[in-house]
């Protein structure tokens, strides 16, 4: 056992360890005391310690730099000056007689003056104890400071974690997307969950330049990729959503609509049902072309007249239509309906939303390339699907058949767009954040700005994967809502490198430091493992 320091003082939550000379302790490093039981601790701060007083040290330095120190040195450098690591105990692990681990939050202090060693993978066997591999959600490998314990894979229970929502935070470029790619990759052959990815950077499916989910051996069976782009890679489905699938409530909290406009919308829907949007555009296109000839309507469409007859103020319809038009990317020019986005009033895309729902319900991973959509349209697409899932799963729940269904989780980039504070109605994502777990629906929110998400929602995101973040205010927002007390980890979070993270979850005993490998390396690894498998092709076989 390699000793790297010794406990010299401190209190609960703030233990001081004197670093052994020649060792280098790092912030974020995991240390251990004992063999069984083991106290696992994490370094959260480092300071200099010296047997000399500050005045003495300054004098000594003065002698040196002012040229009077010839022949002077520290006789016992190792004893006189050293590093003090501030650590906190994060877990107390006991292996009982039948080989089962019991891990608990430390409530006592490790023995005073205990020798401290670096951790090994073996110290963390308790993490995988009693876990259902089928339901695992991969996050990366264990990390101790900047060193990676590659053979210690860190997973959490997927159904639990996914239904209780996951928040992934970091400043830009610290590896949020990389982490989600890694997670998805490892989930691709797991049937316990369907995942919907709204992908505004079109980075998850992969292309010839960068690998993605399409490179997975199970991609064909388990990945469904929608893209509005005609030049989308092979295997993709062109995304078209018929406006028949769009309901008034899908706009809730997505598009800022006044009460009057909302009322108008519902009136139109009542009258035209599934065709409500098409009618809005068609009729006003007609009205436009008839504007000067039709005295009776005074250039107003039938809808407008109808609305006015129901007490809707003049002008409300125009404003509403403008908003819907922007959200759907459907415009009307010179009596013609022009559809620029994925929404269509024509006879296509009618079943798209249902297809997606069906795929999710069968545990598939659905990636929607929203890179060409406006932010509104993207959220609307998400809202439509999320609503569908919600409705369907609510049905299953009341029918008592929900248990057999896979969990559904929705990956949202720039999550504050939809989870951010709004004075209007709560949108479907907000609803999922608050009560989705009852219906086996969860969110994976990705953000640089967790502080924009209301506290209540943040507190509901019960697993937080915290990557590097140098913004104090952001760290504070995350730390304040974390499942563990991370008040001393702020500095450490600021100094995390790409791919390094801290996982704080109500499903982990302590905040686990992880490293998520570069996605490309994970792909290579999978490929290498694949090619080692015996090829199952026999002459004369049926397939």
């Amino acid at each position, binding site marked *: 056992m390699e000793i790297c320091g010794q406990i010299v003082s401190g209190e609960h939550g703030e233990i001081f360890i004197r670093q052994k000379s020649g060792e280098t302790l790092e912030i974020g490093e995991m240390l251990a005391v004992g063999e069984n039981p083991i106290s696992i601790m994490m370094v959260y701060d480092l300071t200099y310690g010296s*047997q*000399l007083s500050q005045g*003495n040290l300054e004098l*000594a330095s003065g*002698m*040196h730099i002012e040229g*009077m*120190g010839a*022949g*002077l*040195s*520290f*006789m*016992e450098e190792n004893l*006189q000056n050293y590093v003090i690591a501030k650590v906190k105990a994060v877990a107390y692990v006991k292996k009982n007689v039948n080989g089962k681990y019991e891990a608990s939050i430390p409530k006592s202090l490790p023995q005073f003056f205990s020798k401290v060693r670096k951790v090994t993978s073996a110290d963390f066997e308790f993490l995988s104890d009693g876990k259902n591999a089928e339901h695992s959600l991969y996050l990366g490998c264990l990390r101790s400071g900047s060193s990676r314990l590659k053979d210690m894979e860190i997973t959490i229970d997927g159904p639990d974690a996914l239904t209780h929502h996951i928040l992934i935070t970091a400043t830009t470029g610290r590896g949020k997307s990389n982490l989600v790619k890694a997670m998805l990759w490892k989930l691709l052959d797991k049937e316990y969950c369907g995942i919907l990815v709204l992908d505004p950077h079109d980075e998850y499916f992969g292309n010839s330049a960068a690998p993605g989910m399409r490179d997975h051996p199970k991609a064909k069976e388990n990945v469904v990729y929608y893209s509005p782009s005609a030049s989308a890679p092979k295997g993709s489905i062109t995304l078209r959503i018929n406006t028949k699938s769009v309901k008034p409530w899908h706009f809730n909290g997505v598009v800022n609509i006044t009460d009057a406009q909302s009322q108008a919308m519902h009136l139109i829907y009542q009258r035209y049902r599934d065709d409500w949007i098409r009618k809005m555009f068609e009729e006003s296109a007609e009205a436009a072309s008839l504007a000067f000839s039709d005295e009776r309507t005074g250039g107003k469409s039938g809808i407008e007249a109808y609305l006015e007859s129901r007490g809707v103020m003049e002008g409300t319809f125009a404003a509403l239509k403008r908003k819907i038009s922007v959200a759907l990317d459907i415009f009307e020019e010179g009596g013609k309906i022009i559809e620029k986005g994925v929404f269509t009033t024509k006879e296509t895309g009618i079943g798209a939303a249902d297809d997606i729902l069906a795929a999710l319900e069968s545990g598939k991973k659905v990636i929607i390339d929203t890179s060409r959509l406006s932010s509104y349209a993207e959220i609307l697409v998400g809202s439509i699907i999320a609503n569908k899932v919600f409705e369907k799963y609510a049905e299953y729940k009341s029918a008592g058949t929900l248990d057999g269904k896979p969990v559904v989780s929705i990956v949202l980039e720039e999550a504050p767009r939809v989870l951010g504070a709004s004075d209007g109605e709560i949108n479907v994502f907000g609803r999922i954040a608050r009560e989705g777990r009852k219906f086996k629906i969860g969110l994976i929110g990705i953000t640089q700005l967790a502080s924009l998400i209301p506290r209540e929602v943040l507190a509901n995101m019960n697993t937080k994967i915290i990557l590097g973040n140098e913004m104090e205010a952001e760290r504070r927002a995350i730390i304040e809502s974390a499942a563990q007390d991370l008040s001393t980890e702020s500095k450490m979070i600021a100094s995390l490198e790409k791919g390094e993270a801290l996982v704080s979850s109500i499903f982990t005993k302590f905040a686990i430091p992880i490293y998520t490998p570069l996605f490309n390396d994970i792909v290579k690894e999978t490929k290498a493992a694949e090619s080692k498998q015996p090829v199952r092709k026999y002459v004369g076989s049926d397939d």
Partner: protein
Amino acid sequence: MFDNCVSKIADILSSQSASFEAGAPYFADSHYKAIPFDVSNFRKFAPKRNGSTLCFVDGGNLDIVSAPNFSIQFLRIASVAFKGGKRLPLSLPQRIESIALVTHASDLRKFKVQYFPLDDGQRQYLPQDFEISKSSFSNSQDELAQHPISAAGGAARKFAEWNYGARIIRECLDKGDIFVRDGALQVGLEGEEKFATDAYAAANDKGVIFSGFAKTSTLVTTTGFPLTASVQMLANKHNVGGAWYYAPLAENQNPRHLGDIFVGKFFEHSPYAFRFEIHNGAGREVGAIFEEIADNSRDLSFPGYPYGLVVADKLARVEMGERDALQARIKLQLSRVKGIRECIAATDAHKIISGL
């Protein structure tokens, strides 16, 4: 206002030093015959390792709980040895820790001191329990004068230092090695001489140099200047650079002070010169002893002062925090004993008042 006072004081003091006359060493005690300063008595030397072991001993004691009729002291004696610039482990315990209990002896003119080592195995390194006249601790002839009972703890420590030092010399050191105790060599306390004699005997038997290093010195010159400062000024005046030692300062015929007195500067840029005493310098060339000590005085923590003494002091020091912990434990146990509680209360009141 305050600054004004200080600057006036500074003026007076600096005018005194400007008119500095080194004068001659001054000893009130007739056992010493002062020798006037002579610049040719400076000897220069350079730090050097001559292969001997240097062993340093220091002790500390602190009153833990006391009352007019008893004092419970904690004492700790420590040693550290260096050879070739490296710490050398000794076969004796590095620290001796003991409680010393001082009470009034049945002869009321005396204190009784008893040792209670924390580890019974260390009893052998401590002196026998002893009795000591109360007058040793007071200059007053007044029979009724207060003899602070806690002062006797100092005797318990000093005796233990000598005793432990003698053991180290006998068991761990060899010919040519240098033993350095913290403080000068003169003995002041009743009964101390016996311990000193024993330690010197051990040193002489083994051919070990026995020396004392005084952190502070009260010796002065005929002009009223501190002796060490005067020697330094003399050195400055005559441009004696580098490390040096100065002797002789006096012919010493004090039977209770068996050593030659030196003033030494152990590192060129140090502002300090120290009083250093050697019991049996004749056994070895004095310069070589200074060289070795100077080699040990090159640590950045206190250039010009032996690092070994820095360490021994640290090892021996009884910290206030330690005292509080010990005090709590001792008081807790003692307060259960009838009669003791009341005694402690006799001297405790000021603490309560200062805490108000």
